């Protein structure tokens, strides 16, 4: 990957592609609880009339599922944020659901679970990709998005600011040598994503919330579920 030369005029000297300080952001991986909270929020937004306790449970599990690759990392070092965080999992699943629901005479999904089943499958898939994989992609630990084709981790970190003195300041993507470069903390060999299953030097801890904004997202999701239930009762 090229384009990481520190030539960007608006980049502070301290920001580098070091593992623990990627483009000015401290090393962090949004905890599973936050993925679930975002998943629940997406479920509230997209499930529509299929919203109930059962469908919400499916969606919450879909949000948490990618983080289960920490267990794989016990057998296969470097599997964290790679094996279940690859874009191929939701892509393949989407092809299956699409084929089953549109190109087959008797759709298995529809005959088993009806219209609600199809809706829940699509929302679950979207949540797997957005709340499960996406949230980690936008953190400095990064995600091996094209695993197993490529074992490189990618991280979308930086900022986008309009300044009256400096114009557009953008550090999410580096433009250099004709490449669009995202920051990368390394490959599955060089970059170890710490987790409570495979802790680093810091000791074993199961992180639930790691900052203020994450706490707000969790609170918001916790409030949105009863709000949606109330609203649905009024709609019927």
């Amino acid at each position, binding site marked *: 990957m090229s384009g990481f030369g520190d030539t960007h005029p608006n980049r502070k000297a301290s920001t580098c592609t070091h593992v623990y300080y990627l483009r000015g*952001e401290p090393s962090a991986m949004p905890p599973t609880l936050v993925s679930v909270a*975002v998943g629940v*929020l*997406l479920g*509230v*937004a*997209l*499930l*529509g*009339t*299929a*919203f109930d306790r059962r469908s919400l449970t499916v969606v919450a599990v879909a949000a948490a599922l990618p983080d289960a690759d920490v267990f794989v990392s016990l057998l296969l070092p470097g599997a964290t944020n790679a094996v279940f965080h690859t874009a191929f999992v939701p892509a393949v699943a989407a092809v299956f659901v699409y084929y089953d629901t549109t190109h087959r005479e008797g759709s298995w999904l529809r005959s088993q679970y009806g*219209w*609600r089943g199809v*809706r829940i499958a*699509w929302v679950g898939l*979207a949540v797997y990709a*957005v709340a499960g994989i*996406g*949230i980690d*992609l*936008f*953190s*400095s630990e990064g995600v091996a998005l094209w695993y197993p084709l490529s074992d490189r981790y990618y*991280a*979308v*970190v*930086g*900022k*986008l*600011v*309009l*300044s*009256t*003195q*400096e114009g557009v300041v953008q550090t*999410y993507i580096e433009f250099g040598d004709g490449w669009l470069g995202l920051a990368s903390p390394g490959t599955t060999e060089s970059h170890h994503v710490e987790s*409570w299953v495979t802790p680093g030097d810091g*000791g*074993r*801890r*199961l*992180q*639930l*919330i*790691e*900052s*203020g*904004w994450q*706490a*707000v997202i969790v*609170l*918001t999701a916790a*409030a*949105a579920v009863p*709000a*949606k239930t109330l*609203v*649905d009762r009024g*709609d019927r």
Partner: protein
Amino acid sequence: MPTSVVHSAVAVVLAVGLLGAYADRRALAVVLAVIIAPELDAVLGFVMPGAHRTVLHTAVLSALAGGVLYWDTRRSGSWLRGRWGAYGVRVAWVALFAHTFAHIGLDWAHLDGINFLWPLVDQFVALDGELYVSGEGLIQTFVDVSIDPTTGRGVVDAGQSGTTASVHVSTPVQPSSDPDPGPVDRRFPIAVGGWQLYVLCTGLFVLLARRFQSSDHQS
């Protein structure tokens, strides 16, 4: 502020689900207007020190609005219901919910936080900390309760950052309360940090997904 764009993205996610059958372009526009409006207290900063994140960012406003809304919609001759029907009632509640969580909530966790109980108490509070399980059990560092060794009294640290006299949260309107001579750099952040861009993309995703979704079957 985490920018109005970020607030709006969270508000869209909340509004799309909670508006339910009433989700249309007009209802979304009302919710977004309610989300952006509180930033107007930045302008008040010129006449009242520390006005931004104080006057229109107080949780007292949410509580008051909630009280008035509840009172009005419960009585028989409801003004809101009479004027706009069930649609108006729903949009008002959703806008209040979005304002409280997507705006006040996120600002609470950003920089110096918000003046939570102004005008009752003039105290900025910033939410910051972690929650984790380690060998010592479940640990949270958002609110720190300790005993002051000199006075022996209990001290609660919930991220108190100052009062309207000492806190100035930078805005493009008034980047600093004590301007330097020379050109002023007014910064309009769109997104700062990976997570803010993520929230922005998620809001756009929900709008798009809702558009392409098949219409709801009534079950």
